[in-house]
């Protein structure tokens, strides 16, 4: 129970769909979603494969709690070899799509091969159809979602699709579902585009069973009783993740101007308070309200509008037509997109940040990588490495809001210098001979936590299996509570393992921040066969972490890739509690390898592998 015990496999090259039984033994070892999808990927894909070749696979995986009544039980992951990084990718989304796939009766959807021409997939419980997408290729997510529903005559279909960015191979293209949620990181959208797969539409009616319904209902209710009254849950609801911007700024850990600075003088114009200030033009604030994912009782998602008088919402669109669609509400600013387009690019114009984010929703791009890649380009420009002759006339200086907006437009369509930005920060900076200007680990751009003063985050970035990431460990509260390396190695290791289990459960990471992990174990145990304790979940997470590590090692990554950019290692943070700090992780990294049971080269030892059954 909880698992549907079925895998839908679609060979796009052969136009063949088949339903096969889930490997239940693997589900017992890897739970679901990120872990189980990674196990299938490792078993079926050569780690040395070109991520954009037909031999790579794209796996959409749900967890055992996906589609249940557990709060936040709507998560699913896209697992593949990442187009941005060449490392194993597992990008996690909310919204409604994942739950619908589970309700259609599938734990996993495995997409393999490459269709000879653009197609989309239509799944209605056991009926699966590969359909011509010729008329949808070249169109945006915002056109494709409503358009496919109309074409299918199914207004309740849930859709995940790529925009123009995924079609043309922007390295950080994402897969967008439900208009503004996304399998965001590592370039999973570029992999989908390489398969000539425009979209997946799904409608499910099967329901999700659980092992012990009464125990499950009790566990869910007990979790909600802890979660809902908590001050933390209320703050997530009222202020969203955007709340963190003032915090990191004050602390001195807000990456600014491509990490030249760690505090941003324009923060008050773009923070969680600024989005609530009524505009002069229409008397309405940018922030229109909240949005919740499937079964979520937090609703941290933001819905925003542009100023109706903004140039971004008026006049002619460079791609043709007008800009009226930008007057409609879409996913708004949260911490990461606000950081990446704001401080990281030195831009303090709220409408520009919202517009850049709207473009990412519309054309399917990861806003973190998008913003940080523009910041890298701005750094190259400021350093004189590139000039207007390379940038199509754009004065790509820090703080130039119009240049940021235009750079995002160009990237989405692969036009001019946008094709270079679409390579991602690491490839962009390498192309112009300044690789050290890419604020990235393993090719994936930094999120909004400067690692100089945040010691646990520094180690978490360096060791993340999918490249620079803030969601693979949970050191934020500890890091902000004291500038010290003491205790951080164990904290990072143990939270990486726990996160591995949460990411494999079907629940959202944010929910777990609001209740003790024992509640997670209680819900999974009530839902699933096998006897699930917190200890077993932690061991499962550790197994997943080591499995991912093995994939990356076989793909050619080494300990030399567990490192941070020179800028954060050598140039001290400026200002705040983190002032004067650098991100020296050498000692922590050696201790981390030892704690994980890896050798000095970061390779899991035989005893570790045996203990984990790998």
């Amino acid at each position, binding site marked *: 129970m909880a698992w549907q015990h079925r895998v839908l496999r679609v060979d796009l090259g052969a136009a063949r769909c088949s339903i096969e039984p889930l490997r239940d033994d693997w589900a017992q070892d890897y739970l679901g979603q990120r872990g189980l999808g990674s196990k299938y990927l490792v078993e079926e894909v050569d780690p040395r494969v070109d991520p954009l070749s037909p031999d790579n696979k794209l796996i959409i995986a749900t967890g055992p709690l996906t589609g249940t009544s557990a709060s936040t039980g709507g998560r699913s992951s896209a697992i593949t070899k990442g187009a941005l990084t060449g490392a194993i990718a597992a990008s996690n989304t909310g919204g409604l799509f994942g739950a619908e796939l589970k309700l259609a009766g599938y734990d996993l959807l495995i997409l393999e091969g490459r269709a000879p021409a653009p197609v989309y997939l239509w799944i209605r419980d056991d009926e699966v159809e590969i359909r011509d997408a010729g008329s949808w290729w070249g169109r945006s997510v915002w056109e494709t979602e409503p358009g496919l529903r109309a074409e299918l005559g199914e207004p309740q279909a849930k859709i995940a699709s790529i925009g123009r960015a995924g079609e043309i191979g922007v390295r950080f293209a994402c897969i967008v579902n439900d208009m503004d949620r996304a399998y965001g990181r590592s370039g999973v959208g570029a992999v989908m585009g390489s398969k000539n797969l425009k979209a997946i539409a799904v409608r499910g009616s099967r329901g999700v069973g659980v092992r012990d319904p009464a125990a499950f209902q009790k566990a869910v209710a007990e979790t909600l009783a802890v979660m809902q009254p908590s001050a933390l849950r209320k703050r997530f609801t009222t202020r969203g993740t955007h709340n963190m911007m003032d915090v990191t700024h004050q602390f001195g850990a807000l990456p600014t101007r491509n990490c030249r600075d760690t505090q941003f003088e324009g923060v008050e114009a773009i923070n969680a308070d600024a989005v609530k200030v009524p505009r002069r033009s229409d008397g309405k604030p940018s922030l229109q309200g909240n949005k919740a994912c499937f079964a979520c009782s937090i609703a941290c998602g933001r819905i925003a509008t542009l100023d109706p008088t903004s140039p971004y919402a008026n006049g002619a669109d460079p791609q043709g037509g007008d800009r009226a669609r930008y007057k409609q509400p879409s996913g708004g600013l949260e911490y990461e997109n606000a950081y990446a387009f704001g401080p990281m690019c030195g831009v303090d114009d709220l409408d520009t940040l919202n517009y850049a984010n709207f473009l990412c929703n519309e054309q399917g791009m990861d806003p973190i990588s998008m913003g940080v890649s523009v910041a890298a380009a701005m750094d190259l420009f400021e350093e004189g490495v590139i000039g207007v002759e390379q940038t199509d006339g754009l004065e790509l200086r820090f703080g130039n809001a119009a240049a940021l907006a235009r750079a995002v437009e160009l990237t989405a369509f692969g036009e001019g210098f946008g094709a270079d930005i679409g390579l991602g920060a690491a490839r962009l900076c390498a192309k112009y001979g300044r690789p050290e200007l890419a604020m990235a680990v393993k090719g994936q751009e930094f999120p909004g936590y400067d690692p100089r003063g945040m010691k646990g985050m520094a180690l978490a970035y360096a060791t993340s299996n999918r490249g620079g990431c803030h969601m693979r460990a949970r050191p934020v*509260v500890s890091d*902000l*509570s004291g500038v010290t390396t003491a205790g951080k190695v164990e904290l990072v290791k143990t939270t990486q393992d726990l996160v591995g289990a949460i990411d494999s459960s079907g629940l959202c990471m*944010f929910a777990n921040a609001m209740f003790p992990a024992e509640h997670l174990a209680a819900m999974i145990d009530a839902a699933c066969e096998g006897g699930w304790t917190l200890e077993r979940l932690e061991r499962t997470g550790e197994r997943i972490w080591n499995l991912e590590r093995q994939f990356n090692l076989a793909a050619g990554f080494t300990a030399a890739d567990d490192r941070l950019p020179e800028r954060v290692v050598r140039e001290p943070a400026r200002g705040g509690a983190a002032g004067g700090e650098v991100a020296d992780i050498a000692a922590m990294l050696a201790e981390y390898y030892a704690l994980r049971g890896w050798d000095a080269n970061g390779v899991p030892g035989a005893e570790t592998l045996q203990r984990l059954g790998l």
Partner: protein
Amino acid sequence: MTIEISLFGFGDERPAAFGAGNRLALEAPSPLSPQALLQAAGFDDTEGLVLIVDDTVIQVADWQREQIGDGAAVTVLSVFEGG
């Protein structure tokens, strides 16, 4: 003596003693420990709070021991494992 306290990451969810700017000039007869200061400022629940005094984080383990005196600039952050 006066201790200046500024809040960040709270929005409108602040103790009543703080004004709309999320600032408070706390009058105290003598130096206060961080714990006492937070209580005096109206914080009933200190979970998830970070205290920075003159750009130095005071770790929770030291909240009973450290003393905050006249003219100190205190920053209180509300933090969580965000996204």
